[in-house]
């Protein structure tokens, strides 16, 4: 059988040499180190995708974004389950019927849950954490949250159920996007 290369232990979390008294017996796969790959010790080919997309905003989200441009958070209502839903949608996914109307909800809410994120998507460190949160919007049905960012707050002081208010971009700079709300700060 092929000789399997056990990766050299660089830190405590690297695997020690496994004990071959349990199944699977002699599992194969040639483990490469990052260096083998980066320094071209193994043959590789590279290709970079250049895929571009133009997403349509949709009937419901389009109106939601138009509301944001005016500094309003819009929600939809279903007459059957009586939920007031945000983000808005063209149909109620629970009752599987068209929604029954639009309503404006508050630009305040409570923090359902949050995180203090110290890395970018490609796992590079950032110093000041981003604070993503699920914010339950006042005026919508209980538990109806949106994902957004918290700001203007000491990261150590953020807690669940904290009351927050949207901080809007100046009206002239709004473009009808979720980023028309800069972040949410404690009330």
């Amino acid at each position, binding site marked *: 059988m092929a000789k399997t290369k056990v990766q050299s232990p660089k830190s405590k*979390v690297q*695997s020690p040499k496994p004990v071959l008294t349990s199944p699977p017996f002699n599992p194969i796969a040639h483990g490469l180190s990052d260096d083998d790959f980066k320094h071209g010790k193994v043959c590789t080919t590279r290709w970079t995708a250049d895929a571009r997309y133009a997403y349509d905003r949709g009937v419901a989200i389009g109106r939601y974004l138009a509301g944001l441009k005016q500094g309003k958070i819009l929600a939809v209502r279903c007459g059957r389950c009586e939920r007031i839903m945000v983000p808005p949608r063209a149909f109620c996914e629970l009752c599987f019927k068209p929604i029954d109307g639009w309503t404006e909800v508050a630009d305040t809410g409570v923090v359902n849950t949050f995180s203090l994120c110290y890395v970018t998507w490609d796992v590079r460190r950032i110093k000041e954490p981003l604070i*993503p949160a699920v914010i339950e919007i006042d005026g919508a049905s209980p538990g109806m949250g949106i994902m957004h960012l918290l700001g203007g707050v000491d990261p150590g002081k953020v807690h669940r159920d904290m009351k927050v208010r949207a901080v809007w971009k100046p009206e002239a700079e709004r473009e009808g996007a979720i980023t028309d709300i800069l972040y949410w700060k404690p009330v």
Partner: protein
Amino acid sequence: MGNRVAIVGVGMTKFVRRALETGKELSWLASKAALDSCGMTMNQIDSVVMGTAPDTFDGVHMKGEYLSDGAGGFGKPYMRGFVGGGTGVFSVAQGWYHVASGMFDTCLVVCEEKMSTFQPHAQAAFLTIFDHTTERPLKPNLLWIFALEMNRYMTTYGLKKEDIARVAVKNKNNALDHPAAQIAAPVTVEDVLNSEVLAWPVQRLDVSPVSDGAVAVILANESVARRVTDKPVWVEGCGWALDTAYWTNRDLCYPRYVEEAARMAYKMAGVTDPRHQIHVAEPYDPFDYKELHHMEGLMLCGRGEAPQLTVDGVTARDGELPVCPSGGLLGVGNPIAAAGLMKIAELFWQLRGEAGKRQIARKAKRGVAQAWGDLMQVGTVVVLGV
């Protein structure tokens, strides 16, 4: 329901951070090992199911077709299944209905993942799971949703990070006895708590790694199974369920979709009291809190009770309800679809009493494996028994 279906053979590759082998080669190694484990050959296989995660990882359009030769799919009824992270366990459900329906006597189920191809980091392959208009402009990364869910779980039940860290400690130590393991390590609770903070409350050692690897299992109907092996492991039940993609409208403290999938599988298996009728469990553990979350969704304990069971040692290999005796994704590794099927392989060895140093102390006649994925919304469950 349907014809009886058994697992008669399993095989797997090592799980590594970056494999020299291509996905096709990994699939071949796992498939060959599975066939050899029960003395079967490819011409005894009637159908092939391939489980593998997004095409984005590989940058290969129609990746299932690309991989098919490695799974012996050529000239056979072949199909790829993909339900995100839930794929590995779902693929057995998919193979099960191929055979249970009577259409095929046998089915080779192969799950492969090669996450290392994607540059610079596989995490970016997941970024488009967020809504393109209402979420992606906020530049989210995948860790956010897990951190948000973990924090909701912790604050709902007043849990401490130390309680959750014990899962990582248990699984990484369990994996020391797994010959295919990628990141087995004798870590302690302190190591986990002192590891780098990624997206609080998620720290480095709370998370499973990026991996390459493949696993294969062979399913057979009863007459073939009885000829091939003295110890068939029966697929007693399977279930799957999906929750809404409006994930910010759900209560993230409880995986309702896992419960729905489990109820479907338990009903088929005749399990009415999972706490006593399930003897060993392999819930999906890409993060340490997910094992706890999923134990609750599988109704192996009450809501918010799973951390205490871990603290009390109930879920250890010598405990009353061993959980992830393999070492799980946290210890063996997480090549997405293959990781789920690795759990099925572990139950196969455990229920046959062949797990060697990993063999659990208690007698086990029935086990459950579960996987999870997408925007925290899919649950897939398989109950196996002897």
